[in-house]
C-alpha cells in the first residue's frame, strides 16, 4: 500500500487542479452567453432535426463483415505462428472457430451484403 501513496497524491493533485481551473475560469473568464452562441455547432449551418434520433441498424452488416474478414485474421495469425506447438488440438479449435464464423458468412451472403451495387 505504501508504494501507492505517490499515485494517490498525483490523483488528488489532478482533481484539485481541475477544480482550480474551473474556479479560475469562472472568476477571470468573461461570460457573455446569447441564444445564437449557445446554439448547436453544425459547421455554421442551422441544425436540422434533433440529435436524439433513431437510425437504421443496417450498419450491423458492416460489423458482421468486419468480424468475418478482419477479426478472424487477427486470431488466425498467432495460431499460424504457433501451429506446430499447438498441434492437433489447436487445429480442431481453429476449425470450430472458423465453422462458427462460416455460419455468419453464409448469413451475410444470403442477406446480399456482398453485392455492392
Amino acid at each position, binding site marked *: 500500500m505504501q508504494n501507492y501513496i505517490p499515485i494517490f497524491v498525483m490523483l488528488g493533485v489532478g482533481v484539485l487542479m481541475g477544480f482550480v481551473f474551473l474556479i479560475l475560469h469562472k*472568476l*477571470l*473568464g*468573461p*461570460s*457573455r452567453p*446569447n441564444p*445564437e*452562441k449557445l*446554439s448547436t*455547432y453544425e*459547421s*455554421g*449551418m*442551422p441544425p436540422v432535426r434533433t440529435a436524439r434520433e433513431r437510425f437504421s441498424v443496417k450498419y450491423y452488416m458492416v460489423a458482421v463483415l468486419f468480424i468475418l474478414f478482419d477479426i478472424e485474421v487477427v486470431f488466425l495469425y498467432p495460431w499460424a505462428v504457433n501451429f506446430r506447438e499447438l498441434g492437433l488440438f489447436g487445429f480442431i479449435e481453429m476449425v470450430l472457430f472458423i465453422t462458427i464464423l462460416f455460419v455468419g458468412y453464409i448469413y451475410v451472403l444470403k442477406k446480399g451484403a456482398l453485392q455492392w451495387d
Partner: protein
Amino acid sequence: MGLEHALGESAITTTIDSAINWCRKNSLWPMPLGISCCGIEMMAFAMPRFDVSRFGSEVFRFSPRQSDLLIVAGTTTYKMATVVRKIYEQMPDPKWVIAMGACTSSGGMYRTYSVVQGIDQFLPVDVYVAGCPPRPDNLLHALMMIQDKVQRGESRSTPMTVAAERLEKQQLLQIQGVNN
C-alpha cells in the same frame, strides 16, 4: 473583464488584467475558415516553414467553441456569409477577427452579385491583410498586430473594459428603444 465585475476596477485588477492579456496574446487559438485560395497560404502559415507556433497560435481548432481568433481566408459569398456570421457568433468572448486577403477585406476582383464586398459588412474586423493571396509572412504580421491589440485590451467584437461594456449595453438599450 470578468474580474472587474467581482472586484471593481483598481490597480490590482488592472495588473491581473494585463497578465491575463499577456497569456491570451501568446495562446491565440485560431478558427480557420479557409473558404478559398487564401486558405492554402493560411495552411503554410501554420506549417514549419513559417511556423506560427513561435507565436503560440499553432493550435488550429476546428470548432468555434475552443478558439478566440477567427481567420476568414477567402472570397465570402452571400451564401457563405450566414455561415461565417454563425461561426463568429458561436465563438466564446473575447474574440478577434482577421480578414485575410483582398476578397475577404473588400470583395477584391469579384465585383459581382454573389460576393460580399468585404466581410466588415456583417462582422467587426480587427485586422485586414492585403494581398491576393497574402504571403504567410503577411498573415504572421497580422497575427502580431492582433497580439498588440490583445495586450492593449482591445477587441472590436468584445468590450474589454467595464466602461466599454456599459457603453455597449446603453447602445443596445437605445436600439431597442428605437425599435419599440
